[in-house]
């Protein structure tokens, strides 16, 4: 494990996520086993003790998110990982962290739902992640990688932006990405001089006034004001931080919108469509919050129709419609429960789109 840096290695997604977090300076992992992300925890349990970090297997996902909250409040980079039902348990903790302006990383390796669901990949937690990761008026940064390398790259970015904007960040992965093995280059970064968190509750040492990390504001006007201010920060994020990949969109008539593992399947279909002479393209959101609204609106000026493909009943499709203000038709295709769409199925839908446009 020591020689892993600055090499191209074959790694399982879950383990690559863990190593990337360590590379980003995270030394505190609090988690709980749940399929299909347990390898992340297991990797951390081996790696953290060797570098003087914390691996703590908490008594539940609830305890884990609160340990993350405590560590984050004390000013360190902390993270947890789980899968769909476990993320549901974390929603209260996430809300408190948003309300207390605390940065942290939460990884969701999505599985079939609802309920105990299944252990195969899905994207059925999109609503949870982007609309209501916790109660109250809030947002968290949500990154949607679609390869093991991208997962690695986004972990560092997630920690950095979480610190900059003082809010939790999520990597919204799925069981496919978590379990797949791909070559990945891990940057040989020395442990960064992470900026000190001037607001942390870590012991005042009589050198400053005491810090209070809190989300309770009983005076309604005070809470209103505070949340309004926080939303101004969110507005800045929506202007500066959306990320997406555009594949053959510039002259595309029929644009497929997909993220995560589904985007790779969609890309294969788009390539085949192009081979058949169809002007197909793929717009792949890399951040699902903030959503790449501008790029979609741009694409809607020239495209004829959109197809949204998800491993769910269609949770992102309305965001696409809203982003383009329903100016063009948006179809949806997906499977849920852990079923993975095939390139052939997606191609079929693209062909249907072209028929519809005639």
């Amino acid at each position: 494990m020591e020689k892993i840096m600055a090499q191209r290695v074959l790694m399982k997604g879950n383990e690559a996520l863990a190593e990337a977090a360590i590379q980003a300076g995270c030394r505190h992992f609090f988690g709980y086993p749940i399929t299909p992300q347990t390898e992340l925890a297991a990797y951390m349990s081996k790696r953290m003790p060797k570098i003087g970090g914390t691996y703590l297997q908490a008594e539940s996902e609830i305890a884990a998110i609160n340990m993350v909250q405590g560590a984050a409040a004390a000013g360190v980079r902390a993270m947890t990982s789980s899968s769909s039902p476990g993320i549901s348990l974390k929603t209260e903790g996430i809300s408190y962290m948003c309300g207390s302006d605390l940065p942290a990383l939460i990884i969701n390796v999505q599985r079939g739902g609802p309920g105990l669901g299944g252990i195969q990949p899905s994207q059925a937690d999109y609503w949870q992640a982007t609309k209501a990761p916790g109660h109250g008026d809030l947002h968290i940064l949500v990154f949607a990688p679609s390869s093991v390398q991208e997962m690695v790259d986004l972990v560092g970015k997630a920690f950095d932006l979480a610190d900059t904007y003082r809010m939790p960040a999520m990597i919204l992965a799925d069981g496919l990405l978590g379990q797949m093995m791909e070559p990945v280059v891990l940057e040989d970064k020395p442990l960064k001089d992470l900026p000190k968190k001037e607001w942390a509750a870590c012991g005042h040492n009589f050198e400053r006034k005491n810090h209070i990390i809190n989300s309770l504001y009983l005076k309604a006007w005070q809470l209103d004001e505070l949340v309004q201010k926080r939303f101004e920060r969110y507005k800045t994020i929506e202007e500066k931080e959306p990320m997406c990949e555009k594949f053959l969109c510039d002259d595309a008539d029929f644009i497929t919108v997909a993220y995560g593992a589904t985007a790779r399947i969609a890309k294969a279909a788009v390539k085949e469509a192009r081979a058949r002479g169809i002007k197909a393209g793929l717009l792949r959101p890399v951040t699902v919050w903030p959503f790449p609204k501008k790029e979609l609106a741009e694409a809607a000026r020239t495209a004829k129709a959109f197809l949204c493909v998800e491993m769910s009943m269609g949770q992102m499709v309305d965001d696409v419609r809203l982003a383009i203000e329903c100016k063009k038709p948006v179809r949806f295709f997906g499977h849920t429960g852990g079923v993975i769409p095939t390139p052939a199925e997606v191609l079929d839908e693209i062909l249907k789109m072209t028929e519809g446009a005639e």
Partner: protein
Amino acid sequence: MAVVFQKPKSLTNAPMHYCPGCTHGIIHRLVAECLDELGVEGKAVGVAPVGCAVMAYDYFSCDMIQSPHGRAPAIATGVKRAVPGSVVFTYQGDGDLAAIGTAETVHAATRGENITVVFVNNAIYGMTGGQMAPTSLPNQITQTTPYGRDVNTAGYPIRVCELLSTLDGTAYAERVTVDCVKNVLKAKKALKKAFQTQIDGLGFSIVEFISTCPTNWSLTPNEALGWLRENMLPYYPLGVYKDKTAVSQPPVKEETK
């Protein structure tokens, strides 16, 4: 003239919102006195609960974190693992610690987390208006046991010190009360011992304070102390339930690789 008694430095000047005669005030002061006397206010991080003491963050001069209901020991764990040199304490009521937070309490104890838990047990849920607590006594009348707690449907109270004393990670557990000066001074000693246990890295420490809730017991503050003596102390006997410092430790064997 010399000042014989004044407010400790680790207590802020904010007027406390607690009801007249509520024992929270006394217990807060004892915690602050310990922080002062041990000289650890600068290293201290306190974790406030959900309950009447939710605004404890306004009353202590050290860094404070407000926790979700029941999760204070998990928050405290995160802080202590992040800043091992800190002195971390939670301040929790009976619902926080023994209802919603039972798992966090038990697991912080069994992990031997070097934190100090200040447990205020007044056998009722104060903040929400007097409902049954996991420590409410059999036949006790509360808002949600208007005919008295029926053990056949509402079960039996939990004795937290006894429960946690069975766990190897618990280094110090003592039950005290603050009904009279003698007991207040004994309680302070226990709290100081608990903090010292943390400072010495011996594991999890807890001091359970048998307390009153005059408002929701519908008694005057002094009557409430009487009710405490008559009804609570027989069910929750005072005393030390675990003390790792009392047994001499065998020398630690070095691990051979």
